[in-house]
């Protein structure tokens, strides 16, 4: 089996290398990929959209449908992850669970956990497999996280002028929450972003994107035609496209942030979303 796989892979590689003479060489200006529509994107996109970053203009304006459905893919992936691994909250999870009584400091051990008993009340949950956190790590991360989030918003909003946009900003924002979960514990993250909130945020991001598209239909133009945004906001056509791009990028960032946080919460806690990294 392994030998057959090796032969097949080597054969495929050999064929690809033989076909290499048909590829254009490194840095070729006249390569087939650069010959057709990309010339229009580079020469005209600033005129059309007032967005110096061609990548953002192509992503959210010329290829708006593609990006919209990519956002739906990210949303669906988070949903699929939830449906595959999330344990029902009324199922008792076997294992050892520790609870500390807040006023006396006594630790109670239970052999299984059902719904969290009295969260935020007299008993506080203690992780069984994670030692107490270093105060330096916790404090440093608590100080860094707001700046990471601010940078994420900058990357999102500045995507028109520099490398960035909704996908990148969303991923950085989600990374700040992953850092929170890793440096503190998963419960801190779940207290900040409840499951209900992240699910609503993921859906709301897709809705913002579709809603921006529907603005076009409401004004009698095509779906995702940002001329309608210019009309509604009372700005020039190109500035309207720039605004439309910002709207849909915001939707993308919301979905990507929420989807990655959902996936992290589920995978790190093996579906229970009570205890994990």
């Amino acid at each position: 089996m392994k030998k057959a796989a090796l032969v097949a892979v080597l054969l495929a590689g050999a064929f690809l290398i033989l076909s290499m003479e048909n590829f254009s060489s490194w840095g070729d200006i006249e390569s087939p990929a650069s010959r057709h529509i990309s010339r229009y994107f580079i020469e005209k996109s600033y005129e059309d959209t007032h967005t110096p970053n061609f990548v953002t203009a192509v992503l959210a304006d010329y290829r708006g449908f593609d990006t919209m459905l990519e956002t739906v893919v990210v949303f669906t992936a988070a949903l699929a992850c939830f449906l595959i691994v999330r344990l029902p909250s009324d199922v008792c999870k076997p294992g050892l669970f520790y609870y500390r009584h807040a006023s006396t400091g006594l630790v109670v051990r239970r052999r299984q956990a059902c719904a969290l008993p009295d969260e935020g009340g007299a008993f506080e949950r203690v992780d069984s497999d994670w030692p107490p956190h270093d105060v330096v790590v916790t404090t440093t991360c608590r100080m860094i996280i707001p700046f990471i989030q601010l940078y994420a918003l900058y990357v999102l909003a500045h995507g028109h002028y520099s490398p960035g946009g909704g996908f990148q900003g969303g991923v950085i924002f989600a990374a700040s929450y992953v850092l929170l979960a890793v440096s503190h514990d998963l419960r801190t993250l779940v207290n900040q972003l409840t499951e209900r909130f992240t699910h609503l945020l993921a859906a709301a991001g897709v809705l913002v994107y579709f809603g921006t598209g529907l603005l076009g239909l409401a004004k009698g133009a095509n779906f995702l035609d940002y001329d309608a945004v210019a009309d509604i906001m009372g700005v020039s056509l190109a500035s309207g496209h720039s605004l439309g791009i910002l709207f849909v990028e915001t939707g993308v960032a919301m979905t990507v942030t929420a989807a990655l946080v959902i996936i992290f919460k589920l995978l790190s806690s093996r579906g229970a979303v009570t205890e994990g990294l």
Partner: protein
Amino acid sequence: MEDFLTQLTSKYNFWAYIVLMMIGLYAMIAKGNLIKKLMGLGIFQTAIMLFYVAIGSKAGATIPILLDTHSKELIDFADYINPLPHVLMLTAIVVSVATLGVALALVQRIFDVHGTLEEDEILEKIKNP
């Protein structure tokens, strides 16, 4: 032979992508462990992404962001690299992370049910439960 050597030197980047892609493909076919298969998938995807970004490159061009927005001169398309492959790969990277999450979720469920991640052991357990 001379032809082959000039190709080797002018298109060495494609060699790297093909080698990476074949490593990924081999891992996906031949490895028995599901996590190793996912690693192969990741390597394969990386090779595709590098390939796409490379075909958008232009010698002597800069990143696809307009340098001077006030200039009235016509923009020369040879000054900026092709933005289209970047757009395609930008979304592909995020989608690959999301789909990797789904794959890991499936792997977790498989481990919960069968207690192993080795493909042959899982098949054995399905045949003789």
